[in-house]
């Protein structure tokens, strides 16, 4: 074993670059293999074209040294076969010929080393490109996750290409279920507590609401004061959008209840989440100026949901009839009551409103 080979084995370099030597003369293939091993590369040999092709498939070498003059398949024919096969077309090939000159050892080694550096550079670039891609993806996912559930974010990333339009400037008309939630009784608390404390309280409240929203794959569109607007059936269709919206409302209300109890003990004020839900056609768009853009939904169902929320007492979910019809099996009838009608702007027929009382734990 030469010093170079021994050194490269100790350093674990010998597995770095694999070369297949194809030559019908075993003395030549052994000679070439020996030179390559001395440079710390892995070398295997094949004694004819057919064996060479089989070994390229089996071993996927980083480089092939190919003798041109071989009985049977010539080096040119082997080269053509490897290049025309998708699986092997990318393997670099060096044609070695003894036509006129004996193989110049230094020259060949220098050429192989150049190819090896090229190969390593390419591999490093590819590794960095992949790492950057993963990083970018992660950054996008994190950014998305502030607006939509992590599961939806993942789906948007997976839908690469197909959804270039998803967040485009082009507005879309879509069927949407809009849910507005806000905090009853909170204003009177803010009047008698420190600012720092109010912010901490709002954070606690919004954490519960956004968790509940993400739990049912809602998209969060807006947060203002103590109210939150989330949408369903956008940006991806959800066949059970109405059910998801009701379950979200129920979860918001019931998960906030223990916090309300704690706040009541501390501040002597009763609070609770009130929710309004309505469904219908709305416009989904990026709205704003070049400096500030908001991805949002606009339209009657959103306005109606807001109006319903404003009138919903704590622990109640007010919804329009079209929503109630789809979720009625989720609520026992003794917890539901009709609440008259409202007339939507631009519509002649008034719509019926239903109120569901959410039972909260003590």
């Amino acid at each position: 074993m030469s010093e170079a080979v021994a050194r490269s084995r100790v350093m674990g370099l010998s597995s770095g670059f694999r070369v297949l030597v194809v030559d019908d003369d075993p003395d030549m293939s052994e000679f070439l293999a020996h030179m390559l091993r001395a440079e710390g590369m892995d070398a295997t040999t094949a004694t004819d074209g057919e064996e060479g092709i089989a070994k390229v498939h089996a071993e996927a070498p980083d480089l092939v040294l190919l003798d041109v003059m071989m009985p049977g398949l010539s080096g040119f024919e082997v080269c053509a076969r490897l290049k025309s096969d998708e699986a092997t077309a990318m393997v670099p090939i060096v044609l070695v010929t003894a036509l006129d000159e004996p193989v110049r050892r230094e020259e060949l080694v220098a050429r192989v080393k150049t190819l090896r550096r090229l190969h390593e550079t390419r591999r490093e670039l590819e590794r960095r490109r992949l790492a950057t891609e993963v990083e970018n993806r992660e950054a996008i996912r994190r950014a998305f996750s502030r607006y939509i559930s992590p599961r939806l974010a993942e789906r948007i990333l997976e839908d690469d290409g197909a959804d270039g339009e998803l967040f485009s400037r082009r507005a879309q008309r879509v069927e949407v279920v809009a849910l507005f939630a806000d905090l009853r009784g909170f204003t009177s608390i803010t009047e008698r507590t420190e600012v720092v404390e109010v912010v901490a309280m709002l954070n606690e409240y919004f954490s519960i609401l956004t968790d509940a929203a993400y739990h049912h794959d809602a998209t969060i569109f807006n947060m203002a004061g103590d109210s939150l607007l989330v949408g369903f059936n956008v940006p991806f269709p959800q066949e059970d959008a109405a059910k998801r919206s009701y379950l979200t409302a129920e979860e918001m209300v019931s998960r906030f209840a223990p916090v309300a109890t704690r706040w009541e003990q501390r501040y002597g004020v009763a609070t609770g989440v009130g929710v309004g839900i309505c469904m219908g056609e709305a416009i989904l768009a990026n709205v704003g100026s070049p400096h500030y853009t908001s991805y949002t939904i606009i339209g009657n169902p959103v306005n109606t949901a807001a109006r319903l929320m404003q009138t919903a007492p704590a622990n109640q979910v007010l919804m329009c009839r079209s929503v109630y019809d789809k979720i009625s099996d989720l609520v026992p009838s003794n917890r539901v009551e009709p609440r008259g009608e409202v007339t939507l702007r631009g519509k002649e027929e008034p719509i019926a409103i239903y109120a569901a009382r959410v039972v909260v734990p003590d």
Partner: protein
Amino acid sequence: MTQSGYTVTVAKDLADLIPSFMSNRRKELETLRTALAASDFEELRRLGHRMKGAGSSYGFDLVSTIGKTIEDAAKASDAATIGSNLDTYEDYLAKVEIVYE
């Protein structure tokens, strides 16, 4: 210079490969003789070509020179030249001394 007149200097790291190389040369000589007896010039040309490649690579320049002469003579179906070169080759293989450095 040694008495035989045939001295070859081989890189030390090739030492492992030399016994197999030399044994292949002796087998090659047999094959060449057989081919010449059968006037198989195509086989002679191929073998000569192979000698030309392997010889100098290992440092045995005379093997390459003889190989080239055999290859050229085979193309011209020149049995006499091939015969005399095979005698030189045989003499060489019997007497060559290898120095590793």
